[in-house]
């Protein structure tokens, strides 16, 4: 079992993975009931702790288990073995509905492809997660405007995603991930679709947001990883290094 790296802060971890293994069954169910289906081990006995204020990078080649680890840290998936604790709550055995609520309250997620609703404005996209809290329109707008201001898009609040550049769309996505004030922000290849300069702006925005929360970024880009406080390196689903 790989040892969990020592947290750099004295605060308790916001996400804890203990001896986590994730296996997937490959292919569809065979018509021959007795024939076992092959399994793929995407993550093998990995243990990590993520503490508040940390800017953590996850590195590794394709198929190394980066996305699988991110999904487990975000509560999108549950491990085959081991335990993942998110904001003090184990995700094992939780229904999708409960995990969705856990994510809403504690996790913000940024995707490589932005995934913004094209029909509504940047501000409305940012405010979308607040709908779940039943927060009134004016409050939602206030919070969303403040966050767009924070990521440098104060003059783009009423623009629709189609009217924004890739970098601007990703900053809207970051603002959306931050609008619920999550304890951990998870980003999967956030600069994958952006040019170097724009990618730099995104990393700056993510880095700035790590002052009061944990930020975990999975990336192939060494320039991104250089900016992080700590890099978790994976290979073939195993933890190679953490530090």
């Amino acid at each position, binding site marked *: 079992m790989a040892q969990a790296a020592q947290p750099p802060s004295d605060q308790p971890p916001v996400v804890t993975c203990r001896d986590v293994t994730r296996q997937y069954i490959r292919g569809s169910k065979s018509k021959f009931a007795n024939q076992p289906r092959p399994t793929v081990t995407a993550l093998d006995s990995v243990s990590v702790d993520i503490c508040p204020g940390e800017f953590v990078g996850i590195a590794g080649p394709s198929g190394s288990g980066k996305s699988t680890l991110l*999904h487990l840290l975000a509560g*999108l998936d549950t491990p085959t073995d081991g335990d993942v604790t998110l904001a003090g709550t184990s995700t094992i055995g939780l229904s999708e509905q409960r995990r*969705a609520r856990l*994510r*809403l309250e504690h996790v913000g997620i940024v*995707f490589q492809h932005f*995934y913004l609703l*094209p029909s509504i404005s940047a501000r409305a996209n940012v405010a979308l997660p607040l709908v*779940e809290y039943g927060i*009134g329109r004016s409050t939602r707008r206030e919070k969303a405007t403040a966050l767009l201001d924070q990521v440098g898009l104060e003059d783009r609040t009423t623009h629709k995603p189609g009217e924004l550049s890739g970098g601007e769309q990703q900053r809207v996505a970051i603002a959306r991930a931050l609008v619920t004030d999550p304890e951990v922000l998870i980003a999967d290849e956030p600069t994958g679709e952006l040019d170097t300069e724009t990618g730099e702006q995104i990393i700056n925005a993510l880095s700035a947001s790590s002052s009061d929360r944990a930020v975990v970024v999975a990336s192939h880009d060494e320039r991104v990883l250089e900016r992080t406080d700590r890099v978790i390196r994976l290979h073939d689903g195993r933890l190679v290094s953490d530090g």
Partner: protein
Amino acid sequence: MLLLSKFRAVVGIAVQQLRHDRGRTVLAVLGICLAVLSMTLLGSVGLGVIETGEEKFDQSGRDLWITGGPVQLAPGSVGGFENTVYDAHQISAEIGQRDDVTTAVPLAFQTVYVSPNGSEFDTLIGTGAPARGGSVRITQGESFSSQDQHYAGGSYDGPMSHEVVISPQTAERYDVGVNDTLYLGGSIGSAQNNEFRIVGISPTFSQFLGTPTVVLHLSELQTITGQTANDRATMITVDVDDDADLSQVEAEIQAAYPEYDVRTNREQLQATLERQAVLLAAGGSLVVFAALAGITLTTNLLLSLVYQQRRILAALRAQGAAASTLVGVVGTQAILLSFVGGILGAAVTVPAIRVLNIVAETIVGFENVVSVQPWILLSGIVCAFLIGIGGAFVAGWRVSRVSPLEQLQ
């Protein structure tokens, strides 16, 4: 308060989605509108036909109808119709002698050749009837000058009046009027030898039949169409005393003439409609198909939207959005589309019915055959709403199955 705020947000997003995809929204609304229009128009036509039928039967001033089954086409025979009441004059006379019966009148319909000049002939429906009494409206001229004398107790050797009452459409078609002459017969040869004087113009029978007519004494129609052997008629209409028990009279006449069908106005209309069962079933099927087409269209539109935005929906679910919120956004779109389509369909129904009535009046002569009823319009809107519910249910189910992990791999 929290729920209200969430509801308002969901509706707002749904409206934005519809506004964003305007082309698709307009097409969906038009589709639902057409589905509703199909339902309301078919319903209005069906209702109008029944109402018009009831009205016409009531206007006829008759209480009972005696028939020998439906009027059959008989190709190759003179007149083209197979009338199924035999010994019509005798049966009418027997029934007319009852104390509780005011009048019993035989009626026959036959195709006849008609010409204003004896050289160029058309075919029209000839009606053998008295063409007199309170139920027959003469707009120009007069009715027949005498009773039917040609029958002469069944010998058909009494004098023929050679009088004819024609419908306004017939007068217009041949540009003839009162005291002009028409040549009439069951064959062209017969018509060339039978000259009839127009004594009056009446819309009564043409409105009842929905086609231009010429009205003759029954026995004279039978003679010129070769129907004297069995004294055939299409039906016998019976007018019952106001004080009499209609159902009892009906039962007694039915018992006396078991080979014939005796019906009240409503029963006769019902029997007429039952004979059009295939047509009615086809109309009903069209209504069902219109509703199914609306559901399919709305569902298809929403499913394609869900498919197109599946990754965005998955990302929102990954962010913690509840499935109910996303289902609400998609479902609200379905409801809004169906509501607008339903209202539009109901609104278009009114002018469409006016157009249909103009067409119907031009073709068959009946006025206001298609009637607008508020409950039919309301039913159209309700159907549109059900279409929306159906679409929302299927699309909502699909949204609820969007898996963040599968879509965001």
